[in-house]
């Protein structure tokens, strides 16, 4: 993806020449079609990062879409007002005033307003125009507005506001030449002319009530007539939010998404894992010296592969979440799920991310961006890894097959093995539930922000917007998460290959990792684990499924168990209590560097992933201890 290469899109850093236009900010309320316009104007030449110290995403790109690649466009978070009560609004104010560290001075503003709800959207115009920056007002979705019988006098509006006003359609790319013209005029006006002609009269008291009165006045004087809302959205809602049909359709959608991600994503992940590992093996074994070969193939290549195999699932999940969001169904799903989610102190918007976490916590945590309330979002991020993700399945399947007899419980369909498996799913769910309650009644106690859910009209998603989203999320994952995982993988590889014995690598048990495994044995003995399991636990800090491979290596090189298959070897070496304690440990423990990395990114601090890791590890230890004691006593 060369379009994301650093250097292609960089924020202007050199001191400004007076009057020269360099940085343009895109401002608008949520759901005004701002992101669509941003993608239209920049093409794929964009970059996503976090603002320093906050969790708000900083997104910028070159205005290549309208032949002005010399200009940088900064996309500000969607805001209703400049009241500093939300983090998004604070960031927007700081960027616009030029007081945000690492963000350049803004020279001009593109203010996007949804013309379908212009009266309400105009409330944002007042505080933005008060900033006195050169501004153009873009009435988005004006084609839809006119189609549905809406009217607005743009000339009158331009006179009222004292700035140029243009009707555009971001989805269809109509009217964008007005932006080019506006930027061209700003270029011509050297020496930084003041923004806005003198005609503008803004409310003196900057509060919601006065902005509202002002907006009502402006929209009346510009003869704004709101379009009729399409009848079919309400008709569709009668079905999709119906008393019986609503929950039914909700289940169909949820089960469908889940089924596709599992039945399509999981085999695809396995397939790409095999392909990558096979490719690595055939690529390697030709590199000299041998240690370099091992570092490159066993360390770096396999580390990179462990990241890449998540990609199919992540992209599939984001495709579905994107479809749900763009069609407008996501808001309906949140409405239906809200009553249930409230029980654990979260709101309906947390449902889809938590559901996604059953496939993989990484996209789930990235999907929490749809939750505006920061505390709810953090609580969701912190509990998501308890959901039984697909990386836990290999160790569950191995231990259950080795230790649990397949006795039928309810006919031939539901046996003891399935019951234990289901029990582990329930265990993870309960842990998430209780943790959410705990968080919401302590460090993440609900803020005063109420649950306000806007139900957008149903729309057909465009391939363009879905595609951009996939490229965007995929590259964020690869760049930011991949680098951390790679570092951890290389670190673990080095620790399992030193100290050298006469120039050759030590056996795993003699390496630093192996010694630590021995060293922690007293601590994990009460759980029914031995040092081999200890090494497995250490190695699986990168990713849960790694433990199966590690145990295979360890038991494979032990002369006592060399002749046995891994299942028998484990059966021979562990008690039932220890085996059950191990799966319970995996149900609770945070054994996943990818998740830690993505939590770090989404919360923009190491504090939260550290807290999460500590909490989940302690919980895992205690639960495993209890399991071992109980199982050893009663079975």
């Amino acid at each position, binding site marked *: 993806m060369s379009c994301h290469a650093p250097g292609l899109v960089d924020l202007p850093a050199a001191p400004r020449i007076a009057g020269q236009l360099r940085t343009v900010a895109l401002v608008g309320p949520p759901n005004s079609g701002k992101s669509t316009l941003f993608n239209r104007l920049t093409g794929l030449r964009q970059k996503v990062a976090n603002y320093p110290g906050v969790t708000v995403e900083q997104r910028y790109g070159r205005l290549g879409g309208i032949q002005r690649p010399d200009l940088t466009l900064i996309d500000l978070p969607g805001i*209703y007002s400049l009241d500093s009560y939300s983090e998004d609004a604070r960031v927007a104010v700081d960027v616009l005033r030029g007081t945000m560290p690492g963000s350049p001075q803004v020279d001009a503003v593109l203010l996007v307003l949804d013309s379908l709800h212009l009266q309400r959207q105009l409330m944002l115009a007042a505080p933005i125009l008060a900033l006195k920056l050169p501004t153009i007002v873009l009435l988005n979705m004006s084609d839809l507005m006119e189609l549905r019988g809406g009217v607005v006098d743009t000339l009158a509006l331009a006179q009222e506001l004292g700035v140029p006003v243009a009707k555009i359609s971001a989805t269809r790319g109509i009217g964008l030449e007005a932006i080019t013209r506006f930027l061209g005029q700003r270029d011509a006006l050297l020496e930084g002319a003041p923004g806005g002609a003198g005609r503008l009269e803004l409310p003196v008291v900057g509060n919601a009530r006065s902005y509202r009165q002002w907006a009502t006045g402006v929209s009346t004087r510009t003869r704004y007539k709101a379009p009729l809302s399409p009848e079919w959205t309400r008709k569709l809602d009668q079905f999709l939010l119906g008393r019986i049909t609503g929950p039914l359709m909700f289940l169909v959608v949820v089960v469908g998404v889940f089924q596709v991600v599992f039945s399509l994503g999981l085999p695809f992940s396995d397939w790409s894992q095999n392909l990558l590992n096979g490719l690595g093996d055939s690529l390697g074994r030709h590199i000299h010296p041998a240690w370099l070969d091992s570092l490159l193939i066993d360390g770096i290549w396999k580390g990179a592969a462990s990241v890449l195999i998540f990609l199919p699932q992540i992209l599939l999940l984001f495709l579905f979440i994107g479809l749900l969001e763009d069609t407008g169904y996501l808001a309906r799903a949140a409405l239906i799920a809200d009553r249930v989610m409230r029980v654990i102190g979260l709101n309906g918007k947390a449902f889809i991310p938590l559901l996604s976490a059953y496939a993989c916590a990484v996209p789930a945590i990235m999907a929490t961006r749809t939750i505006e309330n920061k505390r709810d979002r953090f609580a969701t991020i912190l509990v998501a890894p308890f959901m039984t993700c697909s990386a836990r399945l290999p160790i569950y399947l191995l231990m259950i097959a080795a230790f649990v007899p397949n006795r039928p419980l309810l006919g031939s369909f539901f046996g003891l093995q399935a019951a234990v498996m289901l029990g582990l799913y329930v265990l993870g769910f309960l842990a998430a539930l209780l943790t959410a309650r705990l968080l919401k009644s302590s460090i993440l106690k609900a803020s005063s922000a109420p649950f306000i859910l806007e139900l957008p009209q149903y729309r057909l998603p465009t391939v363009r917007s879905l595609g951009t989203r996939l490229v965007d999320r995929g590259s964020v994952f690869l760049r930011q998460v991949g680098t951390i995982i790679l570092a951890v993988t290389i670190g673990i590889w080095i620790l399992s290959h030193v100290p050298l014995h006469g120039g050759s690598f030590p056996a795993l048990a003699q390496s630093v990792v192996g010694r630590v495994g021995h060293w922690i044995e007293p601590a994990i003995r009460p759980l029914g684990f031995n040092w081999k399991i200890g090494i497995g636990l250490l190695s699986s800090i990168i990713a849960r499924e790694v433990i199966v491979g590690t145990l295979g290596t360890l038991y494979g090189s032990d002369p006592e168990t060399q002749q046995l298959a891994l299942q028998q070897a484990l059966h021979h070496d562990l008690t039932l209590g220890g085996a059950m304690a191990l799966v319970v440990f995996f149900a609770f423990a945070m054994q996943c560097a990818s998740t830690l990395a993505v939590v770090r990114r989404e919360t923009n601090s190491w504090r939260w992933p550290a807290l999460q890791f500590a909490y989940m590890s302690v919980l895992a230890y205690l639960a495993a201890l209890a399991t071992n004691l109980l199982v050893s006593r009663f079975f």
Partner: protein
Amino acid sequence: MAVLALNQLAVGQAAVIHELQLPEPVEHHLMHMGFSPEARVLAVRRAPAGDPTVYAVDGMEIALRRETARSILVEPVARAARGQGKS
């Protein structure tokens, strides 16, 4: 007409917002979403579980929980008056 809380508004019934009794930031946020005094609001439907309720205000549909709607006071508009133009 009598003033009642927004959550008491029956589905299909319209009302005019009278007053918001919420902490100032929440009140401002709701006003930006369209829930401001003198605005016309219609209870559109309840979620399948009975809560939250979807309200139409300012040409938008917005769902509020009962706990929030309780603090918004409205004056119901008589059903018969609906056809006779807006007052």
